[in-house]
């Protein structure tokens, strides 16, 4: 089934969809330009704008549901952005509205949570300004109806991410992490940009509508090139191999940021891009294959990294990488996988945000300690945090009937049908997930107290726990709601197309049982190692594998050896070459002329008579020349 036609729309909530972007943008502008004057109400304004944006999204959604399924793609023209290249417009369709709801809803909750989390930070207003900026950019990314506007949003979220990772800029590690995130993302953008150039050179338009409807007319070589280039962009933004290295460092940012940007929304933009550009990938099998390989590789790599991290946020970040790997895998499969990719994306947004915020709550209680080896036995002190975290945990490992069970299993099943090798690797990933997430929970909430003497943990205030509760509700039920009866797939199909045959849900398929078994083994292994046994305060050295995982699979080392060192060397060489080579040539020329002149000036003896002699001889020569020429 092909995607439906886009219908130009005006009026109603959808006609005002631009407000979704504009409201948080205004919030950000007021807070940034207003300066200290807005300190008092800055956080409230930020929350208000996010919630208002959610309201618009919800109303739009409601209006969209009012149309027949085939008429649910609504385009809104805004203005002529770059004459001849791109007009800016919004595309409200099931795909984008799903994202909008996720972004604004989770975003609003995290805004609320941040009121409590950042209560003591003198720059809270600026924090909310950046959060608002992020929400605006992210919404532009998903609502854009062409690649240029998408790219604007794409870079906008990158900027917000940069600003928020480096929010505590006085910490050199935070500043470096922010810069790294931006630069690695730029490498991805490099691919995305060239992809866009290729699209323009091929189609002479950048609007989704025109490009995607005509994608099948282009040669498969072109489509493969475009697909791979878009994948590079997606890898950068979604922290897929080989551009994954920035995500772990990005945990330097405040925890709500990690929850919103580096778990729930921004990092899934790559998945959005691949799904949105579906027709291009469907015309290029090689590109699709590469997408699935990247997805599987990343889901395993993320999981392995997650097993070895003692930093609670980095462990969660590894898990995020891994889960996005699942989504990318699904997105690479084609229309059969799109719905599961997006559904997993949404449920992941809920449970991962839930867990990140839970982790934030723990850190808030433990004086911003992130080392899990210094936690333990927190379940009694922070019961609410514990329960909500536990729900998120169960959801992610795929505990039956919770969200992850439906969406992740859906992906694994689809992958299994598509390609058995990929499918089994995805199953293996699920098993590892069971291990590292259990490890995390056991180390944090069970076992004995290994607290620092100064730590006095306590439950967080209501403004922080209520978002946790709401998110955990989503983590429990959203999966079942979306997947059962192919509800989401049907909803999404006007936007991304649908497979020939709707999948049916088997509660006890072979794959599902094997997965469950592997997860149970992983969890049990974690219980043996970290739940029952004493957790050493200092990490044991561990095997080669542990070191491998701890050092992020040597990703940073590789980058350093392959790019940074040669880059530094190249830079030094270039500077030297510029100073001595290019400039040296010029200065050498100048010095040469100067030297020659220095010698030539000796001719100026100061004796008036020798000057006169040269004049006289010159005159004689002139007279001679005149005679010769005159007689010719």
């Amino acid at each position: 089934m092909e995607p439906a036609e886009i219908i130009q729309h005006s009026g109603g909530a959808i006609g005002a969809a631009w407000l979704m972007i504009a409201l948080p943008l205004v919030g950000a502008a007021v807070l940034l330009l207003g300066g200290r004057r807005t300190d008092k109400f800055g956080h409230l304004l930020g929350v208000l704008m996010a919630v208002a944006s959610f309201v618009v999204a919800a109303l739009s959604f409601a209006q969209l549901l009012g149309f027949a399924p085939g008429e649910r793609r609504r385009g809104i023209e805004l203005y002529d952005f770059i004459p001849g290249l791109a007009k800016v417009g919004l595309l409200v369709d099931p795909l984008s509205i799903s994202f909008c709801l996720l972004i604004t809803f989770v975003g609003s909750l995290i805004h609320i949570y941040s009121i409590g989390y950042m209560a003591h930070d003198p720059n809270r207003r600026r924090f909310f300004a950046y959060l608002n900026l992020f929400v605006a950019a992210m919404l532009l990314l998903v609502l854009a109806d062409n690649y240029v506007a998408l790219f604007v949003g794409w870079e906008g979220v990158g900027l917000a991410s940069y600003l928020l990772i480096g929010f505590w800029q006085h910490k050199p590690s935070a500043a470096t992490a922010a810069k790294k995130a931006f630069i690695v993302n730029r490498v991805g953008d490099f691919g995305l940009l060239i992809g866009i150039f290729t699209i323009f050179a091929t189609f002479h338009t950048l609007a989704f509508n025109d490009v995607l409807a005509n994608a099948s007319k282009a040669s498969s070589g072109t489509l493969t090139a475009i697909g791979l280039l878009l994948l590079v962009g997606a890898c950068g933004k979604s922290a897929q191999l080989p551009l994954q290295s920035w995500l772990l460092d990005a945990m330097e940012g405040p925890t709500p940021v990690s929850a919103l940007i580096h778990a729930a929304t921004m990092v899934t933009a790559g998945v959005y891009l691949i799904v949105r550009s579906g027709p291009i990938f469907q015309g290029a099998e090689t590109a699709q294959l590469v997408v699935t390989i990247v997805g599987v590789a990343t889901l395993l790599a993320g999981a392995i990294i997650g097993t070895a991290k003692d930093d609670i946020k980095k462990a969660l970040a590894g898990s995020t990488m891994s889960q996005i790997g699942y989504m990318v895998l699904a997105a690479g499969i084609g229309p059969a996988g799109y719905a599961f990719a997006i559904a997993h994306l949404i449920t992941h947004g809920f449970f991962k945000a839930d867990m990140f915020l839970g982790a934030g709550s723990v850190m808030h209680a433990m004086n911003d300690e992130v080392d899990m080896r210094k936690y333990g036995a927190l379940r009694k002190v922070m019961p609410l945090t514990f329960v909500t975290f536990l729900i998120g945990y169960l959801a992610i490992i795929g505990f039956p009937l919770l969200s992850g069970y439906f969406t992740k299993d859906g992906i694994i099943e689809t992958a299994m049908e598509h390609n058995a090798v990929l499918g089994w690797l995805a199953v293996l990933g699920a098993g590892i997930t069971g291990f590292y997430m259990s490890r995390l929970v056991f180390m944090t909430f069970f076992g004995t107290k290994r607290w620092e003497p100064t730590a006095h943990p306590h439950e967080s205030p209501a403004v922080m726990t209520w978002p946790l509760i709401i998110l955990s509700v989503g983590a429990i039920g959203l999966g079942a709601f979306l997947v059962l009866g192919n509800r989401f797939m049907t909803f999404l199909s006007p936007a991304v197309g649908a497979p020939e045959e709707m999948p049916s849900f088997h509660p006890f398929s072979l794959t599902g049982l094997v997965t469950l078994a592997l997860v149970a083994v992983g969890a049990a292994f974690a219980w043996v190692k970290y739940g029952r046994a004493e957790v050493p305060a200092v990490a044991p050295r561990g095997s080669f594998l542990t070191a491998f995982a701890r050092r992020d699979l040597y990703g940073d080392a590789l980058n350093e050896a392959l790019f940074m060192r040669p880059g530094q060397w190249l830079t030094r060489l270039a500077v030297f070459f510029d100073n001595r080579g290019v400039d040296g040539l010029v200065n050498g020329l100048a010095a040469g002329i100067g030297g020659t002149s220095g010698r030539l000036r000796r001719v100026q003896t100061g004796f008036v008579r020798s000057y006169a002699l040269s004049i006289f001889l010159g005159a004689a020569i002139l007279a001679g020349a005149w005679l010769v020429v005159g007689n010719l």
Partner: protein
Amino acid sequence: MGESITFWVLAIVSVIAALGLVFSRRAVYSALMLGVVMLSLAVLYAVQDAPFLAAVQIIVYTGAVMMLFLFVLMLVGVDSSDSLVETIRGQRFWAIVGGVGFAVLLGLGIGNAVVGSPKGLAAATQAGNVPSLAQLIFTRHVFAFEVTSALLITAALGAMVLAHRERTEAKPTQKDLSRQRFVTFGRTGKNPAPLPGPGTYARHNAIDMPALLPDGSVSPLSVNRYIARYEESQGILSPEVAQVLEQEEAALRANGHSTPTVAEEARDGGPDTEPMDEDGVVAVPVVRPRGESVRESLSEEDGK
């Protein structure tokens, strides 16, 4: 025919004079040679229907300009003469090459040029040479003429400015000079009093008469060395004066000095005059650095 004769005579004279101008060592001779050239040219002008210019040539050049030259020569020193030894390498060779080459080239050019017979100025000077010229000057070229007047005034002013020397300190008064004399006396024992005039106590006051001291003996101070030498060479030196000179010579020899030669005395301004330096200090003969080059050129001449 008459013109030809005049031309050839004057041409030869003027070329020889010009060569003399260039090659004579003494500047005064050069000046005279230049005068000869200018006079010859004046005649040639006259021959070529330019009587006014001939007159101007004589009046302005030979009269005024030449006088100026001689004047300056006197200021700088009449008998100073150039050494003709060249100091800049290759200068003379190339100068002569250039000069000869230039002359040959110009001569060739002119010689090759086809020149008809002169038109003559009869038509142009119907009103006479001077009135015709005057008419041109005061009509067509009146602006240039007026400008030249400005030029001349400027030149006159410029010459005054250049030649004027600002006195940087007060002129020494008689008191200063007198004090200076006694300072010198204290330092060198030189007689501060005026030299005795010739003829004091003597029977007559001719320049060759040494003054007599009250005891009737000859005052050595008053003996004019030039005249004494002359008279000695003529054998008419009076015995009193001879005696004085011998005594003086003996005294100097005892001190390890030889008798100063006349030339030396003349250069130092003679025995009677003590050169006063600009600073008002009586110069010790050896210390006179600024005049060195002049003296060197003099001694060069002496050597030849």
